[in-house]
């Protein structure tokens, strides 16, 4: 399928996400994470954290909204109904805890074709309020031809 590669390298405005204690607990419950670190702020404090700890994959919650503008960018031109998630990579820095404020920037890393499929690769970098990189992600989406 034909793809428009003009958007490669495009970066989207930063997205700010405030990590809430109840949101961390809700996410942890939905993915079967039952450690008190994720559910009990007193247990988390006893373990040396400021508040409940977000499971590593909570990164999805604060990065997804940064990626939305890229997914729906007409210049990128993804047919959302034909898109499947091909692969995913996350690299984590310091753990995220409730009370953190996370700023995420999304970039179009690559747009290419693989056989009949369009391949769209997005990169995200998320930093906390101390400017530490808490998570970087590579999101690879495949779009079937129409």
């Amino acid at each position, binding site marked *: 399928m034909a793809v428009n590669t003009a958007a490669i390298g495009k970066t989207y405005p930063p997205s700010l996400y405030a990590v809430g204690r109840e949101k961390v607990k809700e996410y942890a419950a939905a993915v079967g994470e039952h450690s008190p670190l994720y559910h009990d702020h007193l247990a988390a404090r006893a373990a040396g954290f400021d508040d409940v700890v977000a499971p590593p994959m909570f990164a999805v919650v604060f990065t997804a909204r940064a990626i939305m503008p890229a997914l729906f960018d007409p210049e990128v031109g993804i047919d959302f109904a034909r898109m499947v998630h091909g692969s995913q990579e996350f690299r984590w820095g310091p*753990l995220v805890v409730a009370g953190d404020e996370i700023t995420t920037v999304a970039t179009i890393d690559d747009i290419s074709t693989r056989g009949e499929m369009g391949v769209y690769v997005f990169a995200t970098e998320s930093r906390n309020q101390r400017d530490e990189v808490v998570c970087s992600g590579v999101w690879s989406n495949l779009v079937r031809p129409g």
Partner: protein
Amino acid sequence: MKPGDEFELTVTPDRFITVRYAGASGDFNPIHIDEEFARQVGLPGRILHGLWTMAQVARAHTEALGGPDKLERLSVQFRGMGVMESEIVVHGIVREVGEDRAIVDSEARQNGKRIIRNGEAEIRL
């Protein structure tokens, strides 16, 4: 930890897991929560979120290898589709152990199919 060490996690997603995960994650793609819509686009029915299944792979690592701070990197490939009410088995095996990092390979199977493959993690030692 040494090369060849293995771990496993089993989980059976219930009928409404995709609804709870949609709310928790913000991913409301109807293929995960609307049976009729899913069938209309050619799926057998509602399917699991790939990132929910990846979260099970991540959990398998952090539960077996010492907690969330140990997981430095995880990459996976999604294949096929995961469904509700059928057991998923995550399997991990330590490939190599260095001075301060270990490399772990993983996959997730359901109904005899690999729904996540080529999982590769770096673990802080």
